């Protein structure tokens, strides 16, 4: 092997070692966070509990605020929004079920295509709830859209877009999967097909 070929091998070895070190370091950091059961206790409350955590962060403890930030393997930030009947709905209401949080808007063409599949997924899976979060649109507009589509899944209104900001939504649709314990499993920016939704759901179930 000449020098150039050796350099290719060396670069590959260094990159593998670097990635191993980086991911091992990340894993170690995750081990430092509270155990899953204590995390579950933290997310067991409603939005008031989270507000307390944020207040605690502002006044005393910086680390508590991180628990409201978005990160895979950590509790999904809880939120309470109004549904189309004007009732309060929290993410934590669905503990014990998988939740697919879908951020959408009536003006989004791909959301329109995805909606029937989300409805079908919600209907066909007892252990999954599709929670559709409409972002910053008029209630009447959303009501008409849902009524026309005949969709059965719960729809909540993120009127000021704060939940979408918390969940780093930069385009519609964006979906997140949350497990039965309220832990954020991951996000999918963009439209999913029914096949993809099932594939991911099977993967999530198989992982437990």
């Amino acid at each position: 092997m000449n020098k150039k070929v050796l350099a290719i091998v060396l670069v590959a070895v260094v990159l593998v070692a670097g990635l191993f070190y980086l991911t091992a370091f990340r894993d170690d950091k995750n081990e430092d966070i509270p155990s899953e059961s204590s995390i579950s206790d933290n997310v067991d409350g409603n939005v008031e509990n989270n507000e307390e955590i944020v207040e605690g962060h502002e006044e005393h403890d910086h680390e508590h605020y991180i628990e409201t930030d978005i990160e895979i393997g950590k509790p999904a930030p809880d939120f309470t929004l109004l549904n189309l009947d004007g009732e309060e709905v929290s993410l934590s209401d669905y503990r014990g079920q998988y939740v697919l949080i879908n951020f959408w808007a009536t003006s989004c063409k791909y959301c329109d295509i995805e909606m029937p599949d989300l409805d079908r997924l919600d209907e066909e899976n007892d252990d999954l709830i599709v929670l559709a979060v409409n972002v910053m649109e008029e209630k009447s507009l959303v009501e008409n859209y849902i009524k026309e589509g005949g969709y059965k899944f719960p729809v909540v209104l993120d009127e000021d877009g704060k939940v979408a900001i918390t969940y780093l939504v930069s385009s519609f649709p964006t979906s997140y999967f949350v497990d039965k314990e309220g832990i954020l499993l991951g996000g999918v920016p963009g439209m999913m097909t029914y096949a993809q939704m099932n594939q991911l759901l099977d993967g999530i179930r198989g992982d437990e």
Partner: protein
Amino acid sequence: MNSISFFSYKSINISYFMAFALFSGILSYIISSILAKEYKMDKSKIQDIYMILLIVGFIGARLGYVLMNFNLFKGKLLSILSLSHYNLSLLGGAVSGILALAILSRKYKMEFNNLLSIFVIPFYFSITISIWVLKFDYLMLMSSSIGKRENVILLVSVMFLLAMILQLYLENKVKNKYITPIILVVVMALYYVI
């Protein structure tokens, strides 16, 4: 730290998959160019072939996934066009790449075995690096065949790294045209067995 994206600013969102794909794609392009010179082949032709293989490999990876999971697409053939990095197949990409290479070797009047022995190196290199994206993208990890078993990612990465080293070493030592395909078949079989 935001673990969903590698980089996110306003409407710009770069996923970990895209970041890894870009990084390994660029490095593989450089490696192909270096090897073209080493093997005394036309560098510009090799670069052209690399770009074609990249596109064909991506399409093949998607078609491979569709064929392997055809029951998911029955009655919804249009959804085949809905691409995401969660639904690609490594085997589909490799097979389509080899088929494309066979056609391109005729078109560019270059020996197929020589081309294969060049392009398996960036292929092994890309997998060695890109497999680590599973550690960053949890959903991708769950939807992959590798699953969430400890150290499997390291094992796969090291396996492809060893395949690359073996290929580079034996290429000059053993003048046998079957060495490259044998290493490729063995490493791909081990990937799916693991």
